[in-house]
């Protein structure tokens, strides 16, 4: 069984980027994002790249991005989920009713510490159950995912509507609303503490991976490449935290409740928002989902099944159960997104998450998830969500008409997939 690479030189000349082993696709997406940001920054005369707008961008992205990480797994296994927006609405309805009506009705006073947590738990259980049910229909009864979730698209939003009798439910619990973005941020000190922990963790991960490789006698990158990567990671984290901690709380907001921001009086006190809890949640989910994708059997089976379903089955993988788990997982993520989305608006309304299914799918696809299965990354989906949100809010800031905004977003989606196809052809992959 001969091998062409046998004749290749042992240490071929490699470019700078190849030595760093950076995914060129990731680089391309970051490039696209930077380009969009710079263009809008010029068009808005510097308003796009202010700490305030970047802060808003991150909290607007969180809800869609959380669901998009789950959509990656769904699309990688060659399925689709058109019902995420509807599941989000159903979970939000259940959580709103739990905290505003049902628990107080059962004797728990409004404002009781347990209310938000019981509500969130109820939402997650419902989301997981709906997802698992979808997965069961798809995996065990072999109904195509497209049909099951198209039905779900109609069913679940209206289950939510029925639950709330179509009313807007609010105001939501105070603690619950800290997940919504501006109402719950870490402030300056905590944000920096977390940033430093992340930097240490990132550097430790990079060098630990190197140590393990050396222990196994595998080829490693040159040391300068590792140091460069660690430096880039540290700078990126520090920069992100620096931007978010540069957004100060306006004095009139502090004046409403100075003690909340650690001030005695509003005057002369300039607290900062720092990292929003919703974004922290997104980052935690991104890390967890990446670990699932790369380091667990569950993740390995997801990608194997996406690459070749028959081979996965012949390898003894229970692909039906796998489908149930994947859809249950995206159901849980929809519930978490529902917490973020409803608490951002301070109440539950029935149209919450309308069209989110399309945004979520678009984010995953722009992020490089292939509908043919087997390929996709979590960070790609999050970047995809960020790119979409940047386009949308940038155009809104510039004052582009609403219909034109949607036309542009639609065109960008199609164009992004075209670029992806061309890129893959160049690489010679499928």
């Amino acid at each position, binding site marked *: *069984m*001969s091998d*062409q*690479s046998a004749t290749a030189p042992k240490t071929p000349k490699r470019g700078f980027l190849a030595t760093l082993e950076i995914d060129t696709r990731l680089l391309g997406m970051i490039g696209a994002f930077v380009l969009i940001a710079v263009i809008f920054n010029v068009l808005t005369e510097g308003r796009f790249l202010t700490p305030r707008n970047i802060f808003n961008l991150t909290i607007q992205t969180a809800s869609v991005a959380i669901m998009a990480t789950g959509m990656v797994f769904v699309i990688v296994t060659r399925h689709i989920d058109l019902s995420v927006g509807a599941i989000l609405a159903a979970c939000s309805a259940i959580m709103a009713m739990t905290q505003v009506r049902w628990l107080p009705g059962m004797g728990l006073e409004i404002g009781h510490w347990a209310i938000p947590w019981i509500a969130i738990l109820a939402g997650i259980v419902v989301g997981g159950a709906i997802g698992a049910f979808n997965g069961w229909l798809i995996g065990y009864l072999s109904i195509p995912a497209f049909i099951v979730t198209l039905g779900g698209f109609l069913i679940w939003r209206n289950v939510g509507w029925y639950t709330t009798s179509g009313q807007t439910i609010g105001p939501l619990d105070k603690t619950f609303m800290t997940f919504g973005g501006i109402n719950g941020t870490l402030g300056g000190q905590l944000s920096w503490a977390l940033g430093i922990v992340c930097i240490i963790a990132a550097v430790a991960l990079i060098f630990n991976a190197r140590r393990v490789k050396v222990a196994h006698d595998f080829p490693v990158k040159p040391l300068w490449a590792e140091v460069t990567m660690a430096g880039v990671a540290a700078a990126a984290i520090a920069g992100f935290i620096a931007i978010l901690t540069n957004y100060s709380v306006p004095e009139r907001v502090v004046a409403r409740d100075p003690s909340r921001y650690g001030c005695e009086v509003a005057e002369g006190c300039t607290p900062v928002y720092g990292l929003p809890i919703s974004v922290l949640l997104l980052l935690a989910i991104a890390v967890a989902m990446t670990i699932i994708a790369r380091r667990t059997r569950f993740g390995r089976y997801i990608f*194997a099944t996406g*690459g070749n379903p028959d081979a*996965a089955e012949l*390898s*003894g993988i229970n692909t039906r159960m796998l489908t149930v788990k994947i859809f249950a997982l995206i159901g849980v993520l929809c519930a978490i997104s529902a917490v973020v989305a409803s608490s951002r608006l301070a109440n539950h309304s029935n149209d919450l998450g309308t069209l989110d299914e399309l945004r979520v799918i678009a984010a995953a696809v722009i992020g490089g998830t292939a509908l043919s299965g087997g390929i996709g990354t979590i960070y790609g989906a999050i970047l995809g969500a960020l790119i979409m949100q940047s386009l949308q809010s940038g155009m809104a800031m510039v004052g582009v008409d609403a219909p034109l905004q949607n036309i542009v977003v639609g065109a960008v989606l199609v164009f992004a997939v075209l670029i992806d196809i061309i890129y893959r052809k160049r690489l*010679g992959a499928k």
Partner: protein
Amino acid sequence: MTTPLVEMKNVSIAFGGVQAVDNCSIELHAGEVVGLLGHNGAGKSTLIKMLSGAYKMDSGEIHINGEKATIHSPRDARDYNIETIYQTLALADNLDAASNLFLGRELTTALGFVDDDRMEAETRKIMARLNPNFRKLKEPVSALSGGQRQSVAIARAVYFNAKILIMDEPTAALGVHETAMVAELIHELKKQGLGIFLISHDTREMMELCDRVAVMKNGQMVGTERVEDVTEDDILSMIILGKNPREAA
């Protein structure tokens, strides 16, 4: 005679109205290579897929080492140390060689995470034995040549100490040199005491590699013969006419 390693007794399976395998019986002993011959659609692959757990038989029995075995899934077959190299190779093209080799049987760390480094190290070891030129360990197997892909599929079967090996057209996609390597491997595994079922269309190759050949036609077993007792022409007439010339004589 010793107890056969594998004994399939009166096995049948139908798909829709088609009787794909009809009341077939076959034996395999340790250290023996049994070839399965027949036209496309004769039922060779189907028969063997019931042993590998890909299909569930309608009726009949499978005995492993003389004891009745229940094989309902590929996982069951693996528990009996039955490994299969499928005609399609059954590789996940988007994953690298190590992930494919250990698919469904990943090595894990103490915390339960997949241990890619250890799997890669093991893959390097077995590949050094099977295909010393194999170097593309980091790339998805879709980037490999036919021979390299084949060696990944073979490595998967050999690594887990198979006692019974099923090879479905292992040389169909290979060049001359690679075919010779597979033949050599079959001899080596046979010496180690494995029982091997080999499916192929190449009658001459089968005469060289196998101890016995079984011929199927239209889902039925035409006959099983020791290769030294028959000529290539006898085999061909069994394949084409569906009759055993020695019985007729």
